């Protein structure tokens, strides 16, 4: 479904990504973790072309993301993305947020789009908030709306870029619950997150990144079960985030 081959990226002299290679198969859930500044957010943004790359290539469902011939807008409409800071459109109501893409990008009728949007809103447990503006919702609620917005486009895969990092602790679970449910339904997912509980529960593989390189790309059970086999850097990282 998603293939990343030898991807490198730099801003001027600063190397952000170095020779990253990995794949996400259909229905697979891959968690990407690593210290801040390790390039994980950049990596996930290269998948739908939000971050251009200088070397390597990326295929999404067989389409080359970096080819100038690719209709990038069309490709993006098929890949859902959820951001750290939600990025709901503050000048639109929740319903409008959920229907804008469906109407303007997919060309759906307003009624059809609204029906679908409200159904998804109900699914993330926020049916009653339809007419509010994003600013009136809590962070956790906004992020759930953001997930619903991404799902409204019927994506073939979902990308999560630190979806819980900007949330107060008591709101993290309501967002993770939605993500777990999504994973169990067989959605193809790539998640940049530090929530190792989530990784243990639903991930198939865990990728560990540091300084722009993929240091580990390991099946989940191996990653958490056989800590001794991990790279020193990964061990150090895990010991820091797992024991408190």
């Amino acid at each position: 479904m998603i293939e990343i081959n030898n991807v490198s990226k730099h801003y001027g002299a600063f190397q952000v990504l170095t020779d990253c290679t990995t794949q996400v198969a259909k229905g697979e859930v891959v968690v990407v973790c690593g210290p801040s500044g390790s390039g994980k957010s950049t990596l996930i943004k290269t998948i739908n072309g939000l971050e251009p790359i200088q070397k390597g290539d990326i295929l999404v469902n067989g389409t080359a993301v970096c080819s100038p011939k690719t209709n990038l807008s069309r490709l993006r409409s098929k890949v859902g993305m959820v951001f750290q800071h939600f990025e709901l459109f503050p000048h639109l109501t929740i319903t409008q947020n959920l229907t804008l893409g469906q109407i303007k990008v997919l060309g759906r009728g307003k009624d059809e789009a609204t029906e679908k949007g409200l159904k998804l809103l109900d699914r993330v447990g926020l049916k009653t908030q339809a007419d509010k503006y994003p600013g009136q919702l809590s962070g956790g609620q906004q992020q759930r709306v953001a997930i619903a917005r991404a799902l409204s486009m019927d994506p073939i895969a979902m990308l999560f870029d630190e979806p819980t990092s900007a949330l107060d602790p008591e709101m993290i679970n309501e967002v993770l619950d939605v993500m777990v449910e999504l994973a169990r339904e067989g959605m193809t997912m790539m998640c940049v997150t530090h929530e190792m509980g989530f990784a243990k529960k639903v991930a198939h593989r865990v990728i560990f990144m540091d300084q722009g390189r993929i240091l580990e790309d390991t099946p989940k059970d191996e990653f958490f079960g056989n800590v001794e086999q991990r790279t020193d850097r990964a061990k150090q990282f895990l010991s820091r985030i797992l024991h408190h």
Partner: protein
Amino acid sequence: MAYEFDFSLINAANLKVLGEGMVVSLEITLTGAIVGIVWGSILAMMRLSSIRSLSWFSEGYVTVCRSIPLVMVLLWFFLIVPQLLQNVLGLSAASDLRMTSSLIAFSLFEAAYCSEIIRAGIQGVPRGQLFAAQALGMHYGQVMLLVILPQAFRNMVPLLLMQGIILFQDTSLVYVSALADFFGRAYDIGERDGRTVDMLLFAGVVYFVICFFASQLVRRLHKKAST
């Protein structure tokens, strides 16, 4: 000796003439503001575009407009544009194009000022909004029109209204083309009756009152918007 203002100047006949002048002033203000915002938005997007030639054009346009006095541009337009239009449209030399050329001059000039405000407004919208809109599959035009510009304008409304008030004052510069706006009319009446100072004082008071209340209104709007 204290100066004595001749209140008899403020009579119905004169007010009617002044009113007609005010209509011209407002017409220029409104046209300048609307075209200025639309063309200014386009200029701002060109300036922020990754296509070099577009951004250079926009930068050059704005720099030129901001570096020459408006009154000079008005004069050029007064002297050049009517002839040009007459040649292009085959109009008789007698047709009065002063209004048209003034409208064009103000619109083009205003666009340069607005584009700087709008550019700042666009840049003030968090980058994540751009990413989110793009991630939904919107193309550049949709991203701008549906997501970025509505938010940018909401932040910019007070600044743009203030610019509109300045524009309203600047419309008095059309006197160089002998166009009968409010200021021109006041001046004409003053000349005719030999009371130029009185009429200019009166015109000044009117400009002050209008602009003062308009800017108070903008301030209140701004306060309301930011709470």
